[in-house]
């Protein structure tokens, strides 16, 4: 079965924050929240990205490929492979915790009515993504590192103020050290298997064969076995300690 990249045309570019843009395109992809796609920027590279809707991706400028993506405008074309991976599978009462651009897959989960409480974190007020929309579909709590909006501090500061054990599923995506802070708290209460963490690793094939994104200790593939893993699967091994770069070297 051929899975050549689907070529899409960008219809709209939305400036979400000074460093985040949403690219809306002209085709729909049937994805499960937490699944990702490979975005081909012709002549540049192909990078993994979360869907922010069936016809859009939301991107933070972090490197050469995303910088090239930021130069594109309506009418330009991209290749999309996917959706890939497992996505979130919440049940019962659901808490979502998203930091930075990691909010994107959780935003789609909340938009489909699957989140009760949402903790959203960002460095500063102007970097908060999707806050207005999230407030409409969940009980939204906001933390900013610099205190320019909401709780002054990290998302874990808000987590410490609520009864996390009352939630059946805790879905998490964001910087790895943020996720580590959350996993530590779930482990302390013995409920790490209720945590569903969306992992990010360097990827090449995205279909589970090349091995670039495998994580220690279990050798699980982030692209195929993940990207969402329960806390018990990642609490030992490389999580929050190291990852591998494009050559496979530990960084």
């Amino acid at each position, binding site marked *: 079965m051929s899975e050549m990249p689907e*070529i899409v045309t960008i219809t709209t570019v939305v400036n979400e924050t000074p460093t985040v843009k949403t690219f809306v395109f002209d085709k729909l992809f049937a994805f499960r929240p937490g699944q990702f796609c*490979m975005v081909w920027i012709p002549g540049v*590279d192909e990078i993994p990205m979360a869907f922010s809707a069936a016809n859009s991706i939301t991107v933070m400028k972090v490197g050469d490929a995303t910088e090239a993506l930021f130069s594109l405008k309506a009418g330009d074309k991209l290749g999309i492979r996917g959706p890939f991976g497992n996505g979130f599978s919440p049940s019962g009462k659901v808490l979502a915790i998203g930091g930075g651009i990691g909010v994107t897959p959780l935003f789609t989960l909340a938009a489909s009515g699957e989140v009760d409480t949402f903790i959203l974190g960002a460095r500063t007020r102007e970097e908060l993504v999707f806050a207005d929309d999230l407030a409409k579909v969940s009980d939204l709590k906001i933390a900013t590192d610099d205190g320019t909006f909401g709780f002054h501090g990290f998302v874990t500061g808000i987590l410490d103020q609520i009864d996390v054990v009352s939630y059946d599923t805790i879905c998490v995506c964001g910087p790895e050290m943020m996720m580590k802070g959350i996993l530590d708290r779930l482990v302390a209460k013995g409920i790490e298997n209720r945590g569903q963490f969306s992992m990010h690793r360097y990827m*090449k094939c995205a279909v589970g064969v*090349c091995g670039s994104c495998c994580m220690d200790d279990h*050798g699980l593939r982030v692209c195929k076995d993940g990207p969402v893993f329960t806390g018990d699967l990642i609490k030992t091994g490389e999580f929050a300690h190291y990852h591998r770069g494009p*050559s*496979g070297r530990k960084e």
Partner: protein
Amino acid sequence: MIQIQFPKGEIAGVPLKNHLLLAAGILGTTGASLKRMLNLGAGGVVTKSIGPKAISGHHGPALIPVDGGLINAMGLPNPSKDFVEEIAPLKGEPVVVSIFGGTPQEFGTVASWFPDAATFELNLSCPHAEGYGASIGVNPRIVRECTEIVKTYNKPVWVKLTPNVTDIKIIGKAAEDGGADAIVAVNTVKAMRISTELRRPVLGNCFGGLSGKAIFPIAVRSVYDLYDAVDIPIIGCGGVSTADNVLEMMMAGASAVEIGSAIYDSVNVFSEIAADLYSEDGIPAEEIVGCAHV
């Protein structure tokens, strides 16, 4: 369908748990993923190809699934000497270390890093890395010299060949003359796809190598040819995805097989094939190796 017995003793110098090895370049970047594949039923595992210096690989897209297979242009990404630490926990397991270089001397340097390897597989066949792989593996003299130099490390040496040559028998014979303990046939078939909408090649490297079911007949033919040309064991590689494929490869002349792209459909492919292939009252595999030669 015929069923066979599990191997008794070594195959091509390596004590394999069954006749089914994980092929190079598939889930072979980390020690943990290699260990996982052994746990999931691989009889042995071949590592990602390791070279004299760390390489990040080609820009993406680096792999695209196509009808009947996968086309990849990874570009030999590898952590070089750091890989020694990566597979240290696998000491004693049937781990085949795939190595490459641009010269026989570089092959020797990389081989010297892995005293615990069960065997070496020389990548003289990757079709999409300039100066490496098939770009030197089409030259019988270089193939012989690379084999000779790695043989000085006193381990079995397997030589993996490219099908992208006029006569694979000449290259196989060169490896045998260099002292190879086995031939692995074949690596991927040079291939490409073009996006008609973008009017440009899909792969970042423009062209790459085709693997999977689409190349199985090419691999069978290559093994069949080589079986007539060399006296050392042949490991069949290319599109094997069922137990019947394994038998067919063996009848062409393979003593064992490597499996790669079939992982795309199932990470459990080794145990699935083994369940069909083996039986206590099966026949010894040796009875069918090369039996199709008429």
